[in-house]
C-alpha cells in the first residue's frame, strides 16, 4: 500500500516537474523571441524612421503567435502612435491658428508618442518630436523634454543647446541644472562635480529617470560604485510596467554604452522594481471605483 502511494506521488511529482520545466523553457523562448523582434523594430525605426515596417513586423509576429497577446498589443499601440504622429506632423505643416481644444488634443498626442518613444528607446526620434513640439505647442514642459532628449542623444552641440534653454518653475530649473551638469561632466572632469551633484534634489518616485542622469554624472566623476547605486535606485523606483524603459535608458546613456555586456552592469540592470503598480484599471471616471480611496490621482 505504502509503496503504491509512494509510486503515485513520484509519478505526479515527475509529471509536474516536467510540466514546470516545459513552461519555463517556452517562457524563455518567448522572452528571447520578443527581445529579437524588439531589436529588429528598433533597427528599422532608428535607421529610416520607418514605422510602417515596424508595424508590419509586429503584425506578422501577432499572426504567427496568436496565443501571445504581447504582439497584438504592441501592434495596436504602434498603430495608434502612428495615427497620433501623423496628426502632429499634419498640424506642424499647417499655418492655421490652433484653438485651445486642438492644442489640448495635440499636447496629449505629443505626450503619448513621446512616452512610447522613451519606452522603446527611440531617443533620436524623440529629439525630432520634441523639437517639433517646441514650435507647435510651446511650453516649459516641451522645452524640458527637448533638453532631456538632447542629453540622452548627445549630439555635438548638446551643451550649447541645453545652455540656451531656461525654465521658470523651480522643478524645471532644477532639471535644467541637472542636464547642464551632466553635459559639463562629459566635457571635462571637475573637482567641484561631486559637490555640485550632491546639491541636486530629485524626487525618485516621480522622476526615476533623473536618478539615471545622476548616475551618469557620478560615472563621469569616476565614482563607479555610486553610479551603479543610482542606476539600481532608479530601477527600484520605477513602476513594474515601465521598468524596461528605464533599463533601456540606462544602457543607452553615453556613460554606460561601453558596459552593455559588462557583468556588473548587467547584474545592476536586473534590479527589480520596489514600488507597487497602481491598481487603477484606467478610464476617466473614478466615482464608483472601489480603489479610489487608495489612488493618488484622485486624492
Amino acid at each position, binding site marked *: 500500500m505504502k509503496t503504491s502511494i509512494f509510486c503515485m506521488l513520484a509519478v505526479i511529482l515527475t509529471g509536474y516537474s516536467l510540466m514546470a520545466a516545459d513552461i519555463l523553457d517556452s517562457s524563455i523562448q518567448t522572452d528571447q523571441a520578443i527581445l529579437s523582434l524588439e531589436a529588429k523594430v528598433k533597427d528599422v525605426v532608428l535607421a529610416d524612421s520607418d514605422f510602417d515596417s515596424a508595424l508590419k513586423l509586429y503584425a506578422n509576429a501577432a499572426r504567427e503567435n496568436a496565443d501571445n497577446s504581447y504582439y497584438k498589443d504592441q*501592434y495596436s499601440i504602434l*498603430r495608434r502612435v502612428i495615427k497620433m504622429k501623423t496628426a502632429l506632423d499634419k498640424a506642424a505643416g499647417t499655418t492655421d491658428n490652433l484653438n485651445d481644444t486642438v492644442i489640448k488634443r495635440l499636447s496629449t498626442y505629443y505626450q503619448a508618442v513621446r512616452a512610447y518613444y522613451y*519606452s522603446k528607446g527611440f531617443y533620436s526620434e524623440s529629439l525630432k518630436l520634441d523639437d517639433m513640439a517646441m514650435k507647435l505647442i510651446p511650453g516649459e514642459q516641451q522645452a524640458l523634454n527637448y533638453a532631456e532628449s538632447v542629453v540622452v542623444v548627445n549630439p555635438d552641440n548638446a551643451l550649447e543647446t541645453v545652455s540656451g534653454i531656461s525654465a521658470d518653475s523651480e522643478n524645471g530649473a532644477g532639471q535644467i541644472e541637472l542636464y547642464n551638469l551632466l553635459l559639463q561632466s562629459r566635457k571635462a572632469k571637475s573637482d567641484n562635480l561631486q559637490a555640485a551633484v550632491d546639491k541636486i534634489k530629485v524626487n525618485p518616485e516621480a522622476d526615476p529617470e533623473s536618478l539615471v542622469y545622476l548616475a551618469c554624472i557620478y560615472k563621469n566623476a569616476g565614482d563607479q560604485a555610486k553610479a551603479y547605486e543610482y542606476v539600481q535606485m532608479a530601477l527600484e523606483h520605477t513602476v513594474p510596467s515601465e521598468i524596461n524603459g528605464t533599463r533601456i535608458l540606462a544602457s543607452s546613456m553615453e556613460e554606460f554604452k561601453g558596459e552593455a555586456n559588462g557583468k556588473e552592469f548587467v547584474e545592476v540592470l536586473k534590479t527589480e522594481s520596489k514600488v507597487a503598480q497602481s491598481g487603477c*484599471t484606467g478610464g*476617466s471616471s473614478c466615482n*464608483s471605483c*472601489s480603489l479610489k480611496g487608495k489612488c493618488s490621482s484622485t486624492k
Partner: protein
Amino acid sequence: MKKFRYGVHAIVFIAGLILLFGLSFNVEAFCPFGAVESMFTFFHDGQLLCSLGIGNYYMLIAVVIVTILFRRVFCGYICPIGIISAFLRKVSAFLKIKQLAVPTKLDKALSFVRYLVLILVLFFTAQLATLVYRNVSPCIIIASSEEEIEKSTYIAGAITVIASLLIYMPFCRWFCPFAIVQNIFSKFGLAKIHRDESTCVNCGKCAAACPMKLEVDKVKTVNSADCISCFECIEACPIVCDSQGKKPAKVLSWRMPVVGVISSPPKVLTAFFVVSALAVAFAVNKMPFSTYRYSRELPVPSEIKLVEFETKGVSCAGSAQLFIYFLNREDISEIEGYLEVVTSPKDGWTSVKLWYDPELTDEDSIFEAITEPYYDEKESRWRASPFEIKGFDILE
C-alpha cells in the same frame, strides 16, 4: 445534523477558496446583498454599481425562494460571516472562553441596530452611487484583493472576530443589514421548529444551544424570523424516549404545512442547495439582462442604426464604465455619433447593443475605438484595451 451543517460549511469554504484564489473569480458578483444595495440605481438609472453583476440578482432571487421555504438557511449554511461565526463559536468552546451574557433587553435593543445599518447603507448607496457598505463589511476582507480593502473594513473584521469569540454570532444578530431583508420573507417562512409541550421537560437546553439566542423553550412554534434552521436546538434536546422509555419522543421537530414533519432535513436542504446553485449558474449564463445603460444627450439624427456584438472584458458596472470611456476618450476623434449603449453580461461574454448616427460614425470605427490601446495620462503609460470583440480582429 451538526455534521451536515459543518459539512456544508466546509464545502462552501473550500469552493470559495478555489474560486477566489484558484480561479480569481469575482465572488462579490454573487453576493445577494449587492443586489439589494444597488436596487435603487438599477431601477432608477438602469445600471449596477462597482463590481456587481447579474449574479447578484439571481442569487438574491434564489435566497428569497429558499428563505420563504426554509427560513434563513442562507445565514446558517452559506453566508461566509455565518460560517466564520459558527467556526469561532467552536474555537471559543475549545479555548474555554467564557461567553458574555447579554441581557435580553439589551439583546433586543441591539437587534434594531440592523435596521439602522440597512437604512444608512441604502440611503448612502443611492446618494453616492457607490457601494458604501464595502467600507465596513467583513465579507470584503474575504472576497476582495488586499488593495481594495479599506482600514475601516479591517477594523470591522477584527471587531467581528473578537466579538464572535465572546458572544454568540454578534454580527448576524445585531449588525447584519441583509438579515433584515431576509426577515421580511423568513417571517412567512414555511418550515418551522415545533415544540411538543406534552413531552418537553422544560430543561432550556434548546434555547441555550440556539446561536441566535431564540427562546425555543418558551414557544410552541419558533416563529421568529431570525431562525436560521441550524437544528442545534433539536440536537441539544435530551429527550430521546417517551416517559415510559419506549417510543422515540419528538419534542422538537421541523415541520412544514402540507408536508408535516420533515424527517430528513439534510437531504431536503442538500437538494434545494444543489438545485438553487444550478439554477443560479444556468440563469447567469443563459438568461442575461442589461446591467448597464448609458445614454448621450445629442440632437436626434435623421437615421439611427443599431449594432449588436459580443465583447469580453465587460463583466460588471465598473468595467462597463471603462467600456464607455473607450468610446468617449478624447484621443479617438472618430466616435462622435453613438447615442446609447446597453450591456448584458452572460457566459463570459457580454452582449452589447449600441445605437449610433451613421452619418457621424460606422461599425468599424466603433470596434476600433473599443479595442485600440490608449495613453493613460494619469500614469504616463500606454495601456492595451481590455476588450475583445467576437469576430473582430484588428489585424484584418
